[in-house]
Structure formats: C-alpha cells, structure tokens
C-alpha cells in the first residue's frame, strides 16, 4: 500500500469542515421546512373514531385479567358480537374504505410534499458536492478496511493504488448523510423529519386499511383466555405488608 499522503490544510478548511457544517444546517432547515409545509387538515371523524375504538379494545385486552369474568364477557360482547358489535365490520364496507383512502387527494398531496421535501434538498446537496468538490481526497478514516469498500469510500476518484482508508469528498457526503441521524435526533427531538428509514416504513404502510385492523383486534379479543388475577392479590398484598413490618 502507498505511504501516507500529505493532505493540504486548505482541504480541511474549505472542504471537510464546510461540508459537514452544511450537512447539519441543511438537515435542520429541512426539518423546519417540512414542519411548515405539513398541512393541518381536519381528520376524518370516522377514521378517528375507529382509531379510538382500537385503542379501547386494546386496553381491554391488555388488562383483561384485572376485571371479573362476568364484566369481561359483557365488554367482549359489546365489542365483538355479530350483530352490532363495534369491532364487527360487514364484508362490503372493507373495499369501500380502502378505495376512499386512495382517492383522497389531500392524502396523496401530503405524501408528495413529504417526499419532495426529502428528495429536493438531497439532490441539490449532492449536485453541489459533485460540482465543487469532485475528485478530492477529503478525509482518512482511522481504521483499515478491505478492498471491497473502495467503491463505497472512494467514490469519484479512480486510483487503485491509494489506500482504502482515504475517503473522497463525495463519499464523505454519504458518510455524513447516514451518520448524522443520531445528532439530528438529539438536537431536533424525537419526531424529526429526517429519519429516512422511518419514512420508508410509513410509505409501505400507505395502503393501510383500518377495517383490517378492526378485524385483527376482534380476533385478538375472541381468543383471549380470561383469568381473573385479583383473588391472588390479597396474599400478595399481605406478604408485601408483612415485609414492610419486619
């Protein structure tokens, strides 16, 4: 392998540091822009109702063992009987809801805005880096890597004799893109808009169908084994209190 390269300090002052600072600032800017563009539409009453219903049913399922068997059966009947139970969905309505979801223009618009606010800054920054800093060796990672990483870390310079641990400026951009996520979650709080992986998850859940989750919740309620926990708790309380006394 080649011996140590001597890098100009001007590269540090005018490539490495500005690039990282710009990446951080663009991340913050993107967060606030997407926050501004988020339209505060009035949520559909039906969808909110179904969501709350699911939460209630889930609560019942989670704490089923803390109520007597009779109360549990009454509640379960209320949720999942075949005539007018809240979780029971007639067959015909399922398709309808999904079609309505897809045809809702507001939703698609919101999706597109989110996507654009993600893609446009990334393309612009990439073009900027490409235009100004193409072909620089900008950094050196402090640990050795195998040849396999050459295409990843030395994107933009075609020299096979340079040690793999030298990083081109374009690849430094990519490293920043992935590594700064932790920093963003620290400075922007929990639900920052820059988390790309989470975005992907949401996108795949676009065809989300509330009626299906209603059905799933109903099945969950139906198969639950009720076992009232509280009778045992008197002994438990007794032992705890006795421990306190001693």
């Amino acid at each position, binding site marked *: 392998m080649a011996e140590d390269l001597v*890098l*100009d*300090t001007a*590269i*540090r002052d005018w490539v*490495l*540091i500005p690039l*990282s600072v710009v990446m951080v600032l663009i991340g913050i800017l993107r967060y606030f822009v997407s926050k501004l563009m988020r339209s505060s539409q009035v949520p559909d009453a039906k969808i909110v109702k179904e969501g709350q219903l699911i939460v209630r049913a889930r609560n019942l399922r*989670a704490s089923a*063992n803390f109520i007597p068997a009779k109360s549990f059966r009454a509640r379960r009947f209320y949720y999942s009987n075949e005539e007018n139970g809240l979780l029971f969905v007639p067959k015909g309505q399922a398709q309808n809801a999904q079609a309505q979801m897809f045809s809702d223009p507001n939703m698609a618009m919101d999706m597109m805005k989110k996507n654009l606010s993600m893609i446009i800054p990334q393309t612009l920054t990439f073009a900027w880096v490409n235009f100004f800093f193409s072909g620089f060796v900008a*950094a*050196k*990672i*402090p*640990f*050795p890597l195998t040849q396999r990483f050459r295409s990843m870390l030395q994107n933009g310079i075609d020299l096979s004799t340079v040690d793999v641990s030298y*990083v081109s400026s374009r690849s430094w951009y990519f*490293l*920043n893109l*992935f*590594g*700064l*996520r*932790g*920093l963003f*979650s*620290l400075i922007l709080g*929990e639900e920052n808009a820059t988390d790309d992986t989470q975005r992907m998850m949401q996108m795949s859940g676009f065809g989300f169908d509330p009626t299906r989750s209603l059905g799933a919740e109903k099945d969950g309620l139906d198969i639950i084994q009720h076992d009232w*926990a509280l009778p*045992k*708790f008197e*002994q*438990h309380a007794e*032992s705890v209190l006795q421990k306190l006394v001693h």
Partner: protein
Amino acid sequence: MAGHGDSGSDKKSSEATDLPIFNAENLQSNMKVIYYCRTFMSIIGGVTAGILGFTGLTGFIFYLIIMGATSVGLIAKAGFSVPSYFDSWNQIVLDGFLGGLMSFVLFWTFAYDIVHIF
C-alpha cells in the same frame, strides 16, 4: 442527559405472582432516555477518540469501553434495580449499541482528520 426519575417508575411485581404489571408508556419513555444517552455518549466518545488519536482496533475498544461505562451509569441511575424499570437486562445493556456506532465512526473520523491528518 435526562434521568428516568421524571418518567415515573414501572412497578413490576416479581414475587408471589408471575403476572407482569407495568405501564407500557413509561417503559417506552425509559427506552427513549436510554437511546438519547447512548447517542449522546457515542458522539462525545467519537470526538474524544478522534482527539486522542486512536486508530484501528483501539478506537473500537474505546467505543466498547464507552458503551460499558454508559450501561453502568444507567444502571446506577436506575438505583441498581433494573427489573423495576425495564423488561430485561438486554434492554439496558445492549439497546442502541449498533445505532450509536455509526455516529461514533463519523465523529471519530471527523475529529481525527481535523487534529491529526492535515
């Protein structure tokens, strides 16, 4: 670093009954705090490793030490009674380990380059 004190404690009865009693929201809040601590520590540790000029395996060992210290700190903050705040020991010791590595490598490289390469 935020403590878990404000998030309330999840009491889980470990004796007499094997019934788990805990509050899912509080548990999640505790996990979030752990995640924040780990990210914060990995960034600080990365900068420290870069300034001290660690290379190769030394740096990764340093990361392990930092994460171990974070775990010990978190356990101490939980008053050494981990089961009353978390489901299992894995959560407090291992969670967020790989997520912090990326930040660590980035800041390690950054600080190392600025101080030592040029």
